[in-house]
């Protein structure tokens, strides 16, 4: 597989996308009635489910309470059937723990936590099918779920990965492209203010190229934003239509 050509001379990637193109994104909000907010998103073949509870009062040990803002509690998990071979991860592996931490940092930066002192917000994300860009898909799913829960945020948090292959930055890496082992960068962005909520990079990339990869990732995030925004608006229309119906009746 090492010889796989990730970017052809004609400018196509293995799955037929061009360098800057995203995978197809489909999203739905409010998939569960029990939770305060929930969302389901597909980015290509990566599928994620996010559920948000809160804000509610602190559960468990009281010592975690923050007096000026809310505690953001995250949990990331992967379904046993999400990868090619079934794999049980009972209490989460190191990768999940790390991902949990990243999600927490991301959303602490985005949610207006100071509005809810001494309370807690829970975000649970699960990957149902993994095909590259797991972190980014989780962030996007969680953003939609938070919006669904009605928790105020500074802005949408949109995340997208970018890689660098054959002197070209590639947006939104798929699993095959990730597995090739090139440099890979995950960016979570607040698109309106261009503020970075989280930036992570794996393997070495020459600093001369960093700017171009960052530009590609930023552009991809803004594209993601357009799609998410569309999904939120459609969801609102549906909900308000339903409300309207009820009002009529």
């Amino acid at each position, binding site marked *: 597989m090492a010889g796989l050509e990730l970017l052809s001379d004609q400018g196509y990637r293995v799955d037929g996308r061009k360098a800057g193109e995203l*995978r197809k994104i489909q999203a739905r909000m409010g998939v569960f009635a029990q939770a305060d907010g929930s969302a389901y998103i597909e980015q290509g073949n990566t599928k994620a489910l996010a559920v948000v509870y809160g804000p509610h009062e602190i559960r468990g040990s009281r010592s975690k309470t923050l007096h000026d803002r809310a505690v953001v509690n995250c949990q990331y998990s992967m379904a046993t059937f999400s990868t090619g071979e079934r794999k049980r991860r009972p209490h989460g592996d190191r990768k999940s723990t790390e991902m949990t931490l990243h999600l927490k940092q991301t959303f602490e930066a985005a949610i207006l936590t100071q509005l809810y002192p001494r309370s807690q917000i829970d975000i649970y994300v699960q990957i149902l099918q993994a095909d590259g860009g797991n972190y980014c898909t989780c962030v996007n799913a969680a953003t939609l779920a938070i919006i669904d829960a009605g928790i105020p945020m500074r802005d949408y948090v949109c995340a997208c990965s970018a890689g660098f292959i054959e002197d070209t930055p590639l947006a939104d890496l798929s699993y095959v492209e990730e597995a090739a082992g090139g440099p890979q960068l995950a960016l979570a962005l607040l698109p309106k203010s261009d503020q970075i909520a989280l930036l992570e990079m794996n393997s070495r990339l020459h600093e001369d190229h960093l700017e171009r990869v960052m530009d590609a990732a930023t552009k991809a995030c803004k594209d993601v934003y357009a799609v998410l925004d569309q999904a939120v608006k459609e969801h609102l229309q549906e909900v308000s239509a339903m409300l309207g119906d009820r009002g009529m009746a």
Partner: protein
Amino acid sequence: MLKTERILHLKVQRGRTLRAVREHYLRDDVSCWSPLCGRSCPKDGKLLSEELTHYVVPDCQVLHDYQEVLEFPELKGVIFMQTACQFLQYRRGRRQYRRLRSMIRDPRHDCILFSNEFQHHAYLPREMGESAEDWQTRCIYNSCVWYYQHCCGTVPVVMVTEDEGVIHKYSNETGGVYVISFKSYLETFWPDLKDAQELHESLRQSRQELGLENQEKTGKEYQEHLPTEVLEAGIKSGRYKQGILNVNKHRSQLEAFVRLQGFGGKDTDLQSDVLIHGNKARNRAVHGDLVAVELLPKTEWKGRTGALCDNEEDEKTGDSQSDVMPTGRVVGVLQRNWRDYVATFPAQEENRSHGTNTQKILVIPWDYRIPKIRISTQQANVLQDFRVVVRIDSWESASLYPNGHFVRTLGRIGDLEAEIAAILVENSVTVNLFSEAQLAEMPTNTPDNPWNVDDTESGRLDLRKTHLVFSIDPQGCEDVDDTLSIRALPTGHLELGVHIADVTHFVQANSYTDMEARARATTYYLADRRYDMLPSILSADLCSLLGGVDRYAVSAIWELDSKTFDIRRVWYGRTIICSSYKLSYEVAQQLLDGDLEPLNSDSELQPLSQDQKRLEQLLWALHKLTEVAQATRSRRDRSGALELEGVEVRVQFGEEHSIDDLIPKQPLQVHETIAECMILANHWVAKKIWESYPQQALLRLHPPPRQEFFKELKDCALARRFTIDTRSNKALADSLDKANDPSDPLINRLLRTMATQAMSNAQYFSTGSYTEDEFYHYGLALDKYTHFTSPIRRYADIVVHRLLLDSVNKASKDNLLGNKDLDELCRHINARNRAAQQCQKQSVELFQCMFFKDKDPERDLRCTCDAIIYAIRTNGVILFLPRYGIKGAAYLKNNEGLVLSCDEDGTCHWTQGQLQRLPDRITVSAQAGNSTSFCLFDHVTVRIRIQASRVHSDIIRLEITSNKPHADPATVSPSPHNQLVKEDLVKEVTQTVMEGQLADEKAEAQKLNEHDQEYRQTQGHSLYMMLEEVKDLALLDVAEA
């Protein structure tokens, strides 16, 4: 964009299959790269040409089997479907695929890749239960139909296939899309292209044979190679070693070495090469392949043979082996590096006739290191006396020899042109005439339409009025790369300028000329001709900085302190110059020495004898230049640097390629001056481009040599009680200077040759791939060095020019090569340079052999001459013939076991006896009682004879006739004036050959003459160029020695 899914079943390790789902996006905007398409496909990039009558689409099997035929540039309008390309990549591996890719990129080939699997309407999903082949064919056919309709039916599309069923099934389905077999395609559409048809036929035959064989054979000649995953895992864990296989030229049946690569192994104590003993252990690996080897247990280790032998079939017993070295066997081949091989059919009587019309014949490659190749051809009788090109296709474990196919003929054995062509093919050098498309890019310069410089071009500094520019080159040189200027500034400082021909002004990046120059990478100098890198309108006219005409140049100008010659400021940029004088080295030296004689003899200088002022100006410049050069040179020496290029200047006299005859015995001071200025320019340009582009500058490095290679040198020197200190380059130079025997200056030359041979090759590299402390140039003792001063004959210099000009103009980085591309380019240039050196060396050897061929060794005085012993083997000695610059072996023990014994008066004859080898001498004790010793550095007299060979190149054989120095009054060796200059030799041989051919076929000889004239435009070299060449030549790979 439409998203579909593609389900793949991948095999994982442990034999299970894994279901993988991949996304597959279909789109409407896949570009068709056809100029005739009426829709909105983007038209940038490589398009098919417009005047085509049809497009041709090979299917998977055709591309897989006949890729070589499709590589003919005459075949136009080829559309490769992505489906077929992926099939090729999957089945034939990365190397073939890369070849296809570079062909598609090459603007000279009229072919494109159409990404049919991403096009919404061209793609067809695979149906349940459909075989992969059926689906691929269906896909390709459907894409052809789409393509035809996309171009609005203006151009018919021909799909070629080898499968009769496919032709039957699809041929009448759509009008305008034809399905025919590849064979009939070639016959109907390209009836004139006989070469392609022949190649197709020969490939087809070898495929058929292969198919038959696979059914028949069961017995295994060799062990199977291990699968790639196992090899990769083994290399990682250190169980196997990987390296390039090098076959010993003199014992090709027995010995091969693997030079280890990479530091993957855990035990780094394994420093030396690994010996592969015998054909079984070599396990089908061919010289040059990247192989994985497994070490044998220490008890089975063997030593390399120290005895001389000449590749005869009878294998000598290993009684004369030195200490054991790591020995291993090949377990797998990671990368085949097969190329085109020159081969010859065996002589008629050896030829076992099969009686059938297709014969399988073992042809014998020209290169000893390559095994015999089995080909099947019907033309064996016709091609009996020809040199032919063959390619290896495969080597099954059941077969003793590899299978190959016949490609083309080169010419009759022994014919000069055929032999030269053989040398070129063996070194993978292709030199076609420049194509019309390339020549069309060239500016014209005819008497009625003269070419002029454009004064108004911005950013060019005009030095025509202000600077006195002159060039110093050998007599009669036409391609003047470099000119110099020096003047005093009003501030009291000096201004030194080096002005180099501005080739990049004429050769735009990625133009046809540029592609061609890049492919050639260098000008090839053979003994009697040369193959230019650039068309002659550039190399000999518009780029050449001739005297008295306006020319574009790229200049490096330094401001120097007038006392200390420290560099104050430096400026680089494009200029217009007009060289005032084109001096030759001899004239310049005479002027420097105060001899004004040339003023009268040289027409160019004659006006100066009246004009005292201008004469003084020129003289002042020459003197000042010499001073500056001396100062910079001594500064390099003082700062810990050594005069290694000085060493090499002297080494080259001892160099074996008889080039020493070309070189003036006493280098003039002015030679050194010019060389120093060029080194200065190269050094400063290297610094500049490295500062501007730390990750993608092209520099040249010379790695420090490995100490163990100096062992032979040290041992030899000890024989004369010299000690050689090799700890640093300075110590080496100093001790070499001291190792001088006043009675025999040859010894010093030989020692220097050995020192040079111990060193590695200098090479180009991209700065992004190395760390800064690896940039060091050991030979010149400079921290950064590059090649900038000869863009007319080296492609590396063209790249450096582009880098320099972009960095001066602060141009964007986008159009420069990235580190990866540059790295690849450097590797290509290095390989081409090596090939150029090999070509030159082999062509000189060819001429040497031709020279001696028709001389009677017994009577002709020229066949007897003086030689010096410089290495000892167990059954003979290796000699150096200073008069012809030949190195060769002489036996002291012949095949019948007789030894060479000497009488009182020195004459030698064969007799019964024993040989005893000591470190610095070899003693012959004859049964009669008298014994003779041959010591290192002894002079002996030898007779030269030629051992003719039908399938290989002829070899020079030496025979010791006396153990006294040769005392011929006409040529007292090693006196400096034994002047059988190489050029004379070449001329003499060429003439005899010419005469022979003239008698035979006048017309052809005429053409040949023209060629000869054309290629021999400049026999001269600038000294700097020559030094560089000789330096490269001198730095031979030690493994071959």
